[in-house]
């Protein structure tokens, strides 16, 4: 649905985006991450044809925008980071204008639908100059959904929303994805990306450093696995037995709670559990500590770590 090949944007000596090649499949939710100035918005603007790439190409639905500009644009819904509106219009008039522009059938009914979806149905006849930042963001989403596009390109879709608004938008996006919409989401709110996206791409200094599913990305970042074990009683026999295991790298004990580090080559939880039982211990809790997307993001961007080769982390 979305494909870029060696996409590059230069401003004089400064390279905002360098040789970006990515591919978003149909029905996928792709999270596009990166610190400020990483080149995310520049990439989105090139996807939309608003910025011309210095080099490389963009294909949407297998076509270049130059070949079928109007048809491609009709199949995309966009929500930008900053919301810009005609403040002299009401929300309904605003959506009606875009509905006509996109040739939406039964536009009045569709406006009611999308305004209901973003929980603004009661405010549809109010002038936009009276709308709060969060309301404007939701109205922007309503505009992006109005023509029922195949692809949604969303730049910071929940940045101005309160927790209720964030949940509302997340539910809408998940529902739209269930209906088959492909999504390309750029966001700083990593917990939201972690909850909604199937795959993520991490940009830093104009380069795509990592692109994979969340679990695979974390797996490749972790050379050791942390395991939390809670025992009925942490006896010396048990601790001695655990320390003797070859895959245990380190062991910290706090009362009856243990924090173990093991090699990341495989899952050792089974072996650990049976070693404890054989030493006469009783396991109350045994959990693997998962790396959060935030930790993965910080690790990759701070070290500018490229994970694009499948062999594993390489600086």
């Amino acid at each position, binding site marked *: 649905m979305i494909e870029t090949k060696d996409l590059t944007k230069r401003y004089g000596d400064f390279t905002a985006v360098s040789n970006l090649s990515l591919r978003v499949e149909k029905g996928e939710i792709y999270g596009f991450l990166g610190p400020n100035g990483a080149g995310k918005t520049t990439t989105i603007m090139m996807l939309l044809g*608003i910025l011309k790439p210095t080099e490389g190409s963009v294909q949407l639905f297998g076509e270049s925008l130059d070949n079928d*500009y*109007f048809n491609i*644009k009709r199949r995309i819904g*966009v929500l930008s980071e900053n919301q810009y509106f*005609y403040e002299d219009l009401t929300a309904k008039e605003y959506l009606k204008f875009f509905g*006509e*522009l996109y040739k939406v059938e039964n536009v009045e009914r569709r406006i009611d639908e999308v305004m209901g979806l973003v929980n603004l149905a009661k405010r549809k006849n109010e002038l936009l100059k009276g709308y709060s930042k969060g309301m404007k963001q939701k109205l922007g989403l309503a505009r992006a959904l109005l023509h029922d596009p195949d692809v949604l390109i969303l730049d910071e879709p929940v940045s101005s929303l309160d927790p209720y608004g964030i949940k509302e938008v997340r539910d809408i996006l998940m529902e739209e994805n269930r209906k088959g919409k492909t999504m390309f989401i750029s966001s700083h709110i990593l917990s939201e990306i972690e909850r909604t996206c199937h795959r993520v791409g991490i940009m830093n200094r104009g380069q795509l450093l990592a692109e994979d599913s969340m679990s695979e990305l974390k797996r490749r970042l972790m050379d050791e696995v942390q395991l939390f074990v809670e025992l009925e009683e942490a006896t010396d026999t048990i601790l001695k037995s655990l320390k003797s295991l070859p895959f245990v790298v380190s062991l910290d004990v706090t009362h009856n709670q243990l924090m173990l580090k093991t090699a990341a080559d495989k899952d050792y939880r089974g072996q650990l559990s049976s070693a404890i039982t054989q030493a006469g211990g009783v396991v109350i809790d045994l959990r693997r500590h998962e790396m959060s997307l935030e930790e993965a993001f910080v690790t990759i961007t701070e070290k500018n770590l490229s994970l694009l080769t499948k062999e594993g982390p390489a600086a």
Partner: protein
Amino acid sequence: MSISFRAHAVRVAAKRELRSTLYGVGLYAALAVIFLASGYFFVNSSIRSALDAGVLALQNPITEPFFFSVGLAATYLGLCSALSVSRDRDQGTLEVLFYGPVDTISYLMAKFFHQLLAFVVVLAFAIVNFYVISLITNLGFTADFVGFLVLSLFLTSCMVSFGIFLSVITRRMMASVIAFLALVLFFLGFSVAHTIVMSLPGESMTPLLVYVRVIIDNMNSVMQWISPLSYFSRGMTAVFMKDFGQYALSLFSSVVYTGILFSLSVAIFKKKGVRR
């Protein structure tokens, strides 16, 4: 295919802009000022000077003030055009439009037709206004009126394309307004200066003044093609002289002028992009 999509985008965008103009107060306030100014011009310049001179018959008693007001209205719409693109860019609404099925040509054409349609509304008000004046004063319209009417549309097209061009090349609203007003005043001032210099008797001139006069005259021949106002004055002269060939030529040159400025606007807009 893309032509029909483009035409649709032009129609929808121009309709929204026109609606915004018609529901706003700006156009009506400008018309009120223009009609007052033309009324003042009508009484002071035409009627009073005719009475003072003992003239009993005027060639174009209503048409001249009518065109004075229409010319001012066209300039007002030129100013609005000069604001249009830079305002959208300033407010960020330009970018949002381009997320959707709008391209440079359809966007600028919508701006152009919006102002032209607004001018049709202005013409309707002007016709009613001067028809009432005609009834009150018993001064009639002449046969040239229709010729002036058509000409006014072409003048407005020049003014609007000139305004859009300035709006495309400037980034900020204030810069657009200043550029438009400064250039219109410069064109007017230059035209007046040219008329004065050319009317001076040649035999009493010093060699330096003769040299200056030649330079101004040469500059004027260039200015004739740059200034949108000169297309109007050429057309008006043709109507007064009842020279149909010159009249048709002035309409044609207005179309060429509009086309060139529009093409330049499209090229510059594409180069500058839509971002703030």
